[in-house]
């Protein structure tokens, strides 16, 4: 009987392809709204955590209570470096200075994580150099290649940073996001620009072979007072949470809009399709089909429409993410499994709700409609 229901649903949908296309298209666009927005925020989160991920550090040591990089300041005494180095499992330690600042070149300005990097740093430096050097000395800076292109500067050009000026010695790749970029200056310059205090922002630790990042982080927190130490994974998760928290309301609102639009589209098309086949349902009832079989037909119609809409919406969003990747935009669309899961649940709820009205309509169809003249098949 399940087969009969699905067959009828497929045929009913297939017989009116224009209506089906409109329905699937409407659902796809509505669901894409949520999917694309989720993907944009996931992309931003990915971009924001790229520096942490690619820094080469296994453990991030910060001022006590500081658990992420974005929109926070961390200040540790330089003596922390020696204290951390003495802990078992620590292979290397790189102190960095970090501040969120605006870098400028010509008319172009960009918010940047400015990283003060010691010479020969084992971690924390640029991971992909497109042009020039990966090492920064006094008076030098490495900026993202996209920023340089937009600003119209090249190697040897000048960038304003931390209230001074630095000469571009390297152009990095993959260090820009929708919200900011990463620029690298020498540790000494950074410290001097900040008044020369013996502080650092973070200590980046690599662990020795056989040691676990979580174990080393726990040991650091136990033995070094006034610090918070997290594994790279934990630090990234905290950074992502910032983005999620900031975007939650926007995503919720857009998801509700998408949900309502998709629901309206599916409900309307399934209702109209049911209305158009009212007599068919009467015939089936007269022939002995139970109401629940007919309800299944309507539900299957809604489910097929929504599933097709979801598939098209996913395809559309995936295509969009590829297209965006081909542009110069510092934007990344990352379609995550959890986002697809969420939208699929949305879609299932939409299908169920959209079927309610047509099901009520079918429930009221009198099977004796078969004896009324005027609708030959």
């Amino acid at each position, binding site marked *: *009987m399940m087969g*009969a229901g699905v067959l009828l649903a497929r045929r009913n949908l297939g017989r009116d392809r224009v209506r089906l296309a409109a329905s699937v298209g409407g659902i796809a666009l509505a669901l894409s709204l949520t999917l694309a927005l989720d993907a944009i925020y996931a992309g931003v989160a990915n971009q924001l955590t790229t520096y942490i991920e690619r820094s080469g550090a296994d453990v991030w040591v910060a001022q006590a209570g500081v658990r992420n990089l974005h929109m926070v300041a961390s200040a540790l005494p330089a003596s922390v470096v020696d204290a951390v180095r003495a802990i078992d499992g620590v292979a290397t330690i790189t102190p960095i200075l970090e501040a969120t600042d605006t870098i400028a070149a010509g008319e172009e300005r960009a918010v940047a994580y400015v990283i003060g990097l010691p010479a020969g740093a084992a971690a924390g430096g640029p991971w992909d150099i497109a042009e020039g050097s990966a090492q920064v000395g006094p008076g030098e800076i490495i900026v993202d290649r996209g920023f340089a292109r937009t600003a119209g500067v090249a190697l040897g050009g000048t960038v304003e940073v931390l209230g001074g000026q630095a000469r571009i010695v390297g152009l990095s790749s993959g260090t820009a996001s929708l919200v900011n970029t990463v620029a690298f200056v020498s540790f000494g310059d950074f410290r001097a620009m900040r008044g020369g205090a013996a502080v650092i922002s973070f200590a980046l630790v690599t662990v020795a072979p056989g040691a676990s990042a979580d174990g080393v982080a726990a040991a650091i927190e136990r033995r070094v007072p006034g610090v918070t130490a997290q594994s790279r994974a934990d630090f990234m998760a905290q950074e992502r949470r910032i983005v999620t928290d900031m975007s939650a309301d926007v995503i919720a609102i857009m998801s509700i809009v998408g949900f309502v639009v998709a629901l309206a589209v599916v409900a309307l098309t399934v209702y109209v399709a049911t209305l158009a086949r009212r007599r068919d349902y009467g015939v089936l009832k*007269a022939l002995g089909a139970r109401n629940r079989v007919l309800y299944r037909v309507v539900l299957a119609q809604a489910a097929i429409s929504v599933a097709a809409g979801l598939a098209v919406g996913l395809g559309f969003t995936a295509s969009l993410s590829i297209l965006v990747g081909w542009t110069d935009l510092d934007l990344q669309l990352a379609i995550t499994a959890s986002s697809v899961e969420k939208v699929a649940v949305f879609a299932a709820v939409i299908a169920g709700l959209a079927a309610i009205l047509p099901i009520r309509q079918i429930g009221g169809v009198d099977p004796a409609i078969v004896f009324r003249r005027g609708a030959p098949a």
Partner: protein
Amino acid sequence: MTELTLDVRDISKRFGDGETGVLAVRDVSLAIEPGEIVLIMGPSGSGKTTLLSMMGALLRPTSGSIHLDGMPISMMSEDRLPDIRLRQIGFIFQDFNLLSALTTLENVSVVAELAGVKGRAARGRAQALLSDLGLGERLDFLPEKLSGGEKQRVAIARALVNDPPLILADEPTANLDSKIGHEIMRLLRAVAKQEGRSVVIVSHDERIRDIADRVLWLEDGALRDIVTMATDPVCGMAIERERAVSAARDGETWYFCSRGCRAEYLGGPTAEAVIEGPAGDRQAADRER
């Protein structure tokens, strides 16, 4: 005693209450045997469709009882009636009522599937029936691509697919031309006589008298007259028994359209007796004049 397929006893149907109420069917009784074809005729608004709906378990009588194959369908709960309609009754409609989105094959197989037959078996059963009815080349056609006669044959296949003992047909020839109408009548007769199903036909079409075993006249919701049909063994004409001349031979009564046919018939082996009904006498005399 033969077990009845359909046993309708004193059924009435009233729509509405009080002064505005309408008694659509009043005290109708009817017994139909397996393999019997009963034609119900009557003017528009006489209650034919209401009666058919009640016999088809689509409408509950206000009073009286209906038994189908011994089951009291008029007393059954609403929940059980769809199953009765699905397995015990085959419906044929004037407007064919095929599902426009389904192919010929699917229109038939879907009804078998509703009765619990699995997909492939349902399709096999539907295909065999449709091929028997000459539609083997039309299996994948949508109803809109079929002629009226083909649509009605699909409807007949659909009515038969769950092997019901009772077929209810509502004006089955009304939308068909004369030739196709005859073809459908022939099919319905075969359904009754070869497969032992009871067939109840509601129609205005006088031609259907030719295949009916009995003709009932419904007027103002009540059966006014009952005519039993017979076939003249000499000329093959369908005749009303009550108005025919008859003869008994070899323990069986035979009915003739005229004295001439009877004489021709009796010219063979010796008859045991000759019975002439008064109506038959009058009609035969009229014809001979």
